[in-house]
């Protein structure tokens, strides 16, 4: 019988009821009395000098409260970057100013120039049309390699070569060169990791509010991490001390990374509400989201793999150009470096690995973390080149991977991280079993009989989650700690509010976190509620991203619950007139070991708040504990994925016919939710592989600024129910956090793109097409073109 309670139970989600009945409370559902509305006038060109912004006529339009321009933000901080990268010459990265409203120049389509605040959105929009802009267009730089050429247009006047940093990491150059010099075989591949837009279905919203009575600012915002926004906006942009600033992220309709960052619109609404002494609301349209939400990926890479005569990997070298866009978004600089370079060893014991990354400014929307953030880019390169090497050496790609697996743990890679545990053979075995690899030949023959080409692609991956040990990331340039916090507040009658720093925007924390506390205390989940998303309620929190919620915040919650148990046992010992060492907690009952004396959970909690019979000389009344948890290491989820595709040679269309994921997430608290996370990640990975592309033309015009142009995965783009298995039965528990959990949110998005592309290449080659690589998205036109070449 599967468990229906506590850790390991697929409990149905309690948050579903409000979402299914229209009772969710998303930021756009919040309206504050007397609120005004802001409409941002955004640049429709990629690069221009702002010669004049004449707001006179617009300001006289009906309903206009005030029009703000860059001038209003002179002397006010810009949007900060949270991670300082030091380049290979020991110099810190170039960090250009990122004003809330453009000052002097616009640098990408969507850069906000003016903000019109009016009584209604319609009046704000109408007035914005009456603003007279005098823009002197400048030539844009869009292509990264062109941006680095001498004489290229400068995105920022004082950054001559558009280079943010030139970073090198991993093994010494001499060691890598020696590995390649001594290699029996070297495989080389150049590829693009396509620019994506995260596209949570809820567009971003900000509502700023100000109370003169107590000088208190409140921001309601669509954020994955309200405390981070409070810190960045309060300390670096607007100069509001934390105790005068409350940030609330209520129900948030998906994040996928793009709602981590601090955005100009949040600062604007908070600032304007203070200036106007009136609430100000902004709701993004989808088109606006495409040109103002931070984008993801956009790497161009050359990767080389060296193998010895026995097909052992002996060296790996990568050269990547990473697009930063026009400004540095909050964590932009960390993505191609520490979140990418450190994963370049993958699941393999390659002794020499070197990663080189040039981060480049262009006249495009800023690029930052998107589901996986650096790890999908690392996995894609590595797993594509392993497939190519296998082909060149005429060895089975599964066998080549197996031969090079890391098999003993802990394992220190040449790229700075130490994997604590894993079993890559087990996930590969599981994948092969579920995929029925021996049956592939027959399935290929069936496809061929229908005139289709069928291909099999496999892929292994590792990711670093549970971000992150603060002392380590501090050494690497992070300007924040990456611990998390939880308070367990036990009420007098025994019910519990758990205040957590993690933020749930689809992950189901409100259901999963109580399962852990209920298991520890032996009480029912219905007695436990989770509180999150409001800096005025929760102690602190670094938020939810990098598959960290349970591994980091969940660990804090476990520690706080342990403190509760310790104190409750002291109270129980007093009530039972026994020694504390003899008190056992089971099924919500405190008992004296070896006796039938016991006292219930509720009796102990009541005694804590009504301390008539209570050890006041030893302990304080009340039952509330807080813990901060800083992880000792990253966690390292890993897996083996496979898929089969059919390619229609007439059209180049690719369909996914079968998909299997075999993941090792360590211990699993709620299998139903874990599987849902994997389904979602795989859908985004298949989207990247087959459909999605954020495209600019050579003038820096954003060509894909709506769902008419940006192909989101839809229900019929994904594998059929019967041919799709997500498995997480291989479990090597994390060795350093109390739950043994590793994180599951990003795995699907990391593991699936190379799986799909490997399968497409296999299909095409089976049809006699000598195709080595097709860049994502592997669209029908690209496949068809590759087949003709």
């Amino acid at each position, binding site marked *: 019988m599967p468990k229906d309670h506590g850790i390991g139970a697929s409990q149905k989600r309690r948050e579903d009821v409000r979402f299914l*009945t*229209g009772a969710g409370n998303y930021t756009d559902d919040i309206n504050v009395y007397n609120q005004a509305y802001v409409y941002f006038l955004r640049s429709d060109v990629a690069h221009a000098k702002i010669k004049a912004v004449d707001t006179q006529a617009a300001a006289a339009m009906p309903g206009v409260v005030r029009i703000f321009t860059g001038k209003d933000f002179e002397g006010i901080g810009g949007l900060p970057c949270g991670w300082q990268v030091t380049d290979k010459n020991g110099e810190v990265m170039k960090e250009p100013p990122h004003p809330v409203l453009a000052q002097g120049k616009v640098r990408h389509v969507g850069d906000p120039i003016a903000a019109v605040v009016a009584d209604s959105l319609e009046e704000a929009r109408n007035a914005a049309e009456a603003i007279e802009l005098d823009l002197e267009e400048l030539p844009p730089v869009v292509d990264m390699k062109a941006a680095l050429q001498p004489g290229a247009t400068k995105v920022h006047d004082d950054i001559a070569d558009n280079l943010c940093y030139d970073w090198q990491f991993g093994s010494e150059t001499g060691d890598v060169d020696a590995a390649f010099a001594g290699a029996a075989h070297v495989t080389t591949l150049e590829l693009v990791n396509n620019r994506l837009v995260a596209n*949570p279905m*809820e*567009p971003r919203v900000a509502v700023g509010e100000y109370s003169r009575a107590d000088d208190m600012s409140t921001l309601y915002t669509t954020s994955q991490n309200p405390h981070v926004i409070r810190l960045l906006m309060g300390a670096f942009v607007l100069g509001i001390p934390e105790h005068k600033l409350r940030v609330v992220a209520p129900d948030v309709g998906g994040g996928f990374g793009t709602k981590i960052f601090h955005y100009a619109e949040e600062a604007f609404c908070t600032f304007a509400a203070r200036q106007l002494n009136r609430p100000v609301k902004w709701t993004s349209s989808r088109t606006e989201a495409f040109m103002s939400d931070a984008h993801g990926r956009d790497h161009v890479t050359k990767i080389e793999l060296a193998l010895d005569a026995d097909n052992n990997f002996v060296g790996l070298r990568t050269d990547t150009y990473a697009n930063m866009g026009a400004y540095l978004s909050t964590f932009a600089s960390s993505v191609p470096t520490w979140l990418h370079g450190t994963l370049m060893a993958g699941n393999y014991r390659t002794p020499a690995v070197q990663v080189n990354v040039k981060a480049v400014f262009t006249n495009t929307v800023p690029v930052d973390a998107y589901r996986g953030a650096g790890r999908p880019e690392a996995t894609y390169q590595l797993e594509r080149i392993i497939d190519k090497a296998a082909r060149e050496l005429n060895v089975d790609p599964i066998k080549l991977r197996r031969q090079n697996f890391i098999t003993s743990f802990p394992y220190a890679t040449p790229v700075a991280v130490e994997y604590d545990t894993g079993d890559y053979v087990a996930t590969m075995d599981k994948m092969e079993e579920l995929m029925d690899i021996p049956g592939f030949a027959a399935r290929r023959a069936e496809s061929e009989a229908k005139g289709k080409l069928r291909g099999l692609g496999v892929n292994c991956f590792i990711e670093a989650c549970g971000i992150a040990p603060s002392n380590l990331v501090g050494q690497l340039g992070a300007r924040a700690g990456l611990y998390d916090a939880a308070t367990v507040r036990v009420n007098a009658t025994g019910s519990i509010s758990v205040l957590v720093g993690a933020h749930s925007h689809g992950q189901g924390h409100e259901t999963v976190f109580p399962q852990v506390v209920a298991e520890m205390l032996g009480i029912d989940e219905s007695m436990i509620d989770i509180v999150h998303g409001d800096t005025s309620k929760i102690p602190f929190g670094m938020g939810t991203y990098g598959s960290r919620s349970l591994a980091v915040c969940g660990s804090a919650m476990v520690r706080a619950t342990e403190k509760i148990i310790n104190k409750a046992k002291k109270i129980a010992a007093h009530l039972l007139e026994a020694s504390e060492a003899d008190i056992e907690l089971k099924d919500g009952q405190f008992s004296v070991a070896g006796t039938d004396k016991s006292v219930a959970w509720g009796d102990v909690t009541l005694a804590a708040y009504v301390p008539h019979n209570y050890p006041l000389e030893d302990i304080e009344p009340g039952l509330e504990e807080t813990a901060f948890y800083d992880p000792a290491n990253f966690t390292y989820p890993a897996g083996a994925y496979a898929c089969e595709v059919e390619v229609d040679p007439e059209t180049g269309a690719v369909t996914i016919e079968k998909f299997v994921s075999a993941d090792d997430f360590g211990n699993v608290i709620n299998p139903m939710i874990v599987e849902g996370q994997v389904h979602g990640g795989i859908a985004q990975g298949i989207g990247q592989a087959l459909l999605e592309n954020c495209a600019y033309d050579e003038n820096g015009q954003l060509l894909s600024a709506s*769902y008419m142009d940006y192909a989101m995965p839809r229900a019929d783009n994904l594998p059929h129910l019967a041919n799709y298995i997500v498995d997480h039965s291989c479990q090597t528990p994390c060795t350093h956090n109390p739950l043994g959990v590793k994180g599951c949110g990003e795995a699907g998005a990391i593991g699936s793109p190379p799986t799909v592309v490997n399968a497409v290449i296999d299909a095409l080659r089976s049809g006699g097409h000598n195709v080595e690589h097709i860049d994502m998205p592997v669209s029908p036109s690209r496949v068809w073109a590759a087949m003709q070449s």
Partner: protein
Amino acid sequence: MAEVTMTVNGKTVTKSVKGNTLMTEFLRDELRLTGTHVGCDTSQCGACNIHVDGKLVKACTMFAGEADGARIATIEGQADADGTLNAIQAAFQEYHGLQCGFCTPGMVMAAAALLKDNPKPSEAEVRHHLEGNICRCTGYHNIVRAILAASGQDVPAVAAE
């Protein structure tokens, strides 16, 4: 401004609206029925799906004035008065067919329209019917299972067909 009268989830509503007020704005801002969501501006995502005289409509594509005299159903009217979820809503919860919940009202309304016209759809029919709904969280897998289950069919059996 023009006066419009319609029934919304069984209640008669009369309001003055401007000619350019969208049905999404009318429901969300005038009636405070905020379960109807706006996820795009090109009628692609389906988060704003409602029923107008029993037919599935994207509320962002119609003006409130066009609903004069119509019978409107929104997500807020799908559960019983005592809060009991209807069969589709219950199946979405049972099969984990939602994560962030933002697309969910539109999905539930789309599913209801499908099952009214086609009470026992195949998996392919469900997927085809959802072409006007985008979900970024679930990968649709559990939404498809939920809708098949809500139709009273055996999900693995339908999947194997």
